[in-house]
């Protein structure tokens, strides 16, 4: 009898890199997939924004007809929120959270892959309406009964519902994964109050997603039943209540705002201390403020509904005003971090300072909108458009770019080019303000949102033109960013393990990290476990106990190669 000799399958076997990326369950690769996918959707939705701004530059309909315009702003809003800002921050979370916790991966790597792959699927379903007689055109808020089959018979709206339900399911799974990872996979010594602030914001964000998104999913299913199976949840003609949709949508939608802004706040709270060379001022207050914002965010949804005449105004006005308090605390803590620091104005820091100054404007206009009489005037006008872009774009997207410049060296081992980054920042910053600041005045003068045309007599022409110029500047600013990314990937300056002298654990491993993340971990006695190791020699010692602990670090031979070089 012949015998079969089995070849030992030791070592790695060859797999095509495409298959590798398609089947990966490594949180770092999934994180990069999240980020790349989100940016592709960002460019698509940004292109729609340019169409919108081109149409609005002067009165009259020049490029689009009304229907195409309505589809454009609906898709722009939906894609930007659900397929760009939320998932791109989830992507950074995916990459960074296990590293900052000192964990080898997320708690559920396969669910992690699934929750990513549902995103492009959902996004393409939402977009595919364009192939079937027109995408959804009812605004990203999809107010009933405009979304009923009577007023929106097209299949585009059904695809929008299904796509959003998938994306929502993906983020619910992602949220569970984050919560499990954060509670169960922290490195020894990392108590909750020693977690990096970015992880805290992701934890609160994930909790918000877990509590809010199922409500939207339920609403979407109810809407689908209304449209396709003769339901009557939202259509008053058959006994439904259109205000019910608004309650459901905003019960999700307002926490969604914090889902989008909290991780960006976390990014900025990582970057400001590192580039000011100081700890975050008031870490504990910052954690409590984050949790307070998360809690309050569930009691303010109806401030989107002041003009419906269907909500108790004083309560929602009061709760909304209250959110300004924890937000104000955060702002002061950031300013306190800058105070007497030694500021290094590298690109991540510029975007973080941009975040502070732009998010401030969005916060102020938000407090103004909390006042019902003022809201009666500016609700559904360009004032609201200005406000939400100062929060989403001036806040979250500035945070996204700050994160991109900050963690790019960790992800690729190469540092993005600083001069190009600064060019990007300044064109971006000026373009952003040109595009969105004039919208405050447009709204105050009464220009409603979601109109493709306006009267030449209304006096809105000049400001709209300025805004359009700004929008194109933002688009132009992306060019140096893309050049920078490509050029750096091809031939960038090697970054080393810790190019920014960061103090959190992701900087304690190589750039990029090995598949299992860490060979060894430093002792963790504060929210800045690397501080003593990178800065302690000859400088101020953060905590006296660090000195003692340093000597009892359990160090095996062979760990040395994997140690960050600064430590050796």
């Amino acid at each position: 009898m012949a015998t079969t000799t089995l070849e030992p399958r030791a070592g790695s076997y060859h797999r095509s890199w495409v298959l590798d990326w398609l089947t990966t369950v490594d949180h770092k690769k999934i994180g990069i997939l999240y980020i790349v996918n989100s940016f592709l959707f960002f460019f698509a939705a940004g292109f729609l924004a340019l169409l919108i701004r081109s149409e609005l530059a002067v009165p009259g309909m020049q490029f689009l007809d009304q229907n195409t315009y309505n589809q454009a702003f609906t898709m722009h809003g939906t894609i930007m929120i659900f397929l760009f800002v939320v998932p791109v921050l989830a992507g950074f979370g995916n990459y960074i959270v296990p590293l900052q916790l000192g964990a080898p991966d997320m708690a559920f790597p396969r669910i992690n892959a699934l929750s990513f792959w549902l995103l492009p699927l959902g996004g393409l379903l939402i977009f595919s309406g364009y192939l079937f007689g027109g995408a959804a055109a009812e605004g990203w808020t999809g107010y009933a009964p405009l979304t009923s089959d009577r007023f929106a018979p097209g299949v585009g709206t059904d695809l929008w519902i299904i796509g959003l339900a998938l994306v929502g399911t993906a983020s619910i799974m992602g949220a569970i994964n984050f919560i499990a990872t954060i509670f169960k996979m922290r490195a020894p010594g990392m108590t909750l109050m020693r977690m990096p602030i970015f992880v805290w914001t992701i934890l609160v964000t994930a909790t918000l997603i877990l509590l809010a998104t199922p409500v939207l999913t339920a609403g979407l299913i109810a809407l689908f039943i209304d449209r396709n199976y003769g339901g009557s949840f939202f259509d008053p003609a058959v006994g439904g209540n259109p205000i019910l949709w608004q309650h459901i949508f905003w019960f999700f939608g307002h926490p969604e705002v914090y889902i989008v802004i909290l991780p960006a706040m976390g990014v900025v709270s990582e970057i400001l201390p590192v580039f000011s060379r100081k700890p975050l001022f008031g870490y504990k207050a910052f954690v409590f403020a984050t949790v307070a914002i998360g809690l309050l965010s569930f009691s303010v949804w109806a401030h989107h509904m002041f003009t419906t005449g269907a909500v108790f105004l004083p309560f929602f006005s009061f709760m909304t005003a209250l959110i300004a308090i924890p937000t104000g605390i955060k702002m002061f803590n950031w300013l306190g971090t800058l105070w007497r620091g030694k500021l290094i104005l590298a690109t991540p820091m510029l975007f973080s300072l941009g975040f502070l100054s732009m998010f401030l404007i969005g916060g102020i206009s938000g407090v103004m909108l909390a006042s019902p009489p003022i809201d009666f005037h500016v609700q559904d006008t360009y004032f609201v458009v200005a406000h939400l872009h100062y929060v989403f774009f001036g806040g979250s997207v500035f945070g996204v770019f700050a994160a991109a410049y900050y963690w790019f060296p960790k992800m690729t081992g190469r540092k993005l080019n600083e001069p190009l980054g600064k060019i990007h920042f300044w064109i971006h910053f000026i373009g952003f303000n040109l595009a969105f600041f004039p919208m405050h005045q447009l709204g105050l003068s009464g220009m409603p949102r979601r109109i493709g045309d306006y009267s030449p007599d209304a006096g809105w022409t000049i400001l709209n033109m300025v805004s359009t110029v700004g929008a194109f500047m933002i688009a132009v600013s992306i060019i140096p960013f893309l050049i920078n990314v490509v050029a750096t990937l091809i031939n960038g300056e090697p970054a080393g393990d810790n190019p920014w002298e960061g103090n959190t654990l992701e900087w304690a491993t190589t750039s990029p990290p090995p598949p299992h993340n860490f060979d060894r971990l430093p002792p963790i006695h504060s929210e800045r476990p690397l501080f003593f190791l990178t800065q302690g020699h000859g400088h101020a010692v953060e905590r006296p106990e660090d000195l003692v602990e340093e000597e009892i670090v359990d160090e095996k031979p062979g760990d040395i190669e994997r140690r960050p070089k600064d430590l050796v």
Partner: protein
Amino acid sequence: MQPTAPRNRLRKMLRVGIPVLLTVLLAGCLLPPDPKTEAGRDVFNLYLVVLALAAIVFIGVEGFILYAVFRYRRKPGDDVLPEQLHGNNKVEVVWTLIPTVIVLVLFVVSIMTLNEVEARSENPGVTIEVQGFQWSWNFVYEDGPTIGPRGNEPPELAVPVGEPVRLILTSDNVIHAFYVPQFLLKRDMVPVNENGTPNDIEFVVSEAGTYAGQCAEFCGTDHAGMVFTVNAMPRADYDAYIAAIEDGETPPTGGGDCETTIDISANNTRFDIDEFEVPADTAFCIAFENLEDVPHNVAILSGSEALFEGSFLNEAGSIIYEVPALPAGDYTFVCQAHIQAMAGTVTVTE
């Protein structure tokens, strides 16, 4: 005195210049339109208070960020760590109190204004049902006519000035919103099921004039085209307007474009023309410009009976009068404040 170093001078200029610049910018813009209703005036004043608070916060925080960027920038080669300050409880309590006080003040003044805006009178002067549909409006007068879109013209909502006007806002299709920017007021028009009550609003227009209005809640394809005008006029004109519509006539001050527009200006208590000619049985417009701060108007008289009385311009300014159709014949036009000095002839020809 020591000469100021250029760096210090720059800093000084920034310190003084930026707040001044921002204050001018904020004062020059970021304002709602001049309100034309009584409650609108309250909202405007509330807005000024809120804007002032906003400006203080804005200038304070942005100013600190700029200050920090210039003052605390790391100098090249400086490797000494700054003091590792983890926090300060006293300071943190203080800056928790600052936003608390601001938002409480804001809340109290907002609710006070809200009560003004939401006040309802026992007996409003007129009650009009506003019906929104895709994509225009019907104005249904209580015990009176219904006015809808007229061809390509936006529908016109006629209201009397100086008395409470109540609007019942209804829709039997999708949600619309009634919005007149110069009233600083909008309210959704929500289709209700059998258990619901429609929204209503009430306002007192303080100044006669024509104000643009528009649907503010996205309502489908031609949302942008869903416009209307509010024509606020004195009670007597309002009654005549409604009566004319009930008789099936063109409203006496019906808006829209004029086929004929006569330009008249007033200066030194004189009109610039002393006669003009218009076609018979056709409404026309008078573009009247007052060049001095003396009250003037234009009225058209048949003998001593006024067929048309334009509202007064009490100071320099201009206005378009929409004059109803006149039968053929000769009339006079005058300024009713200066009948002797300011008069001329109107010839209405077949």
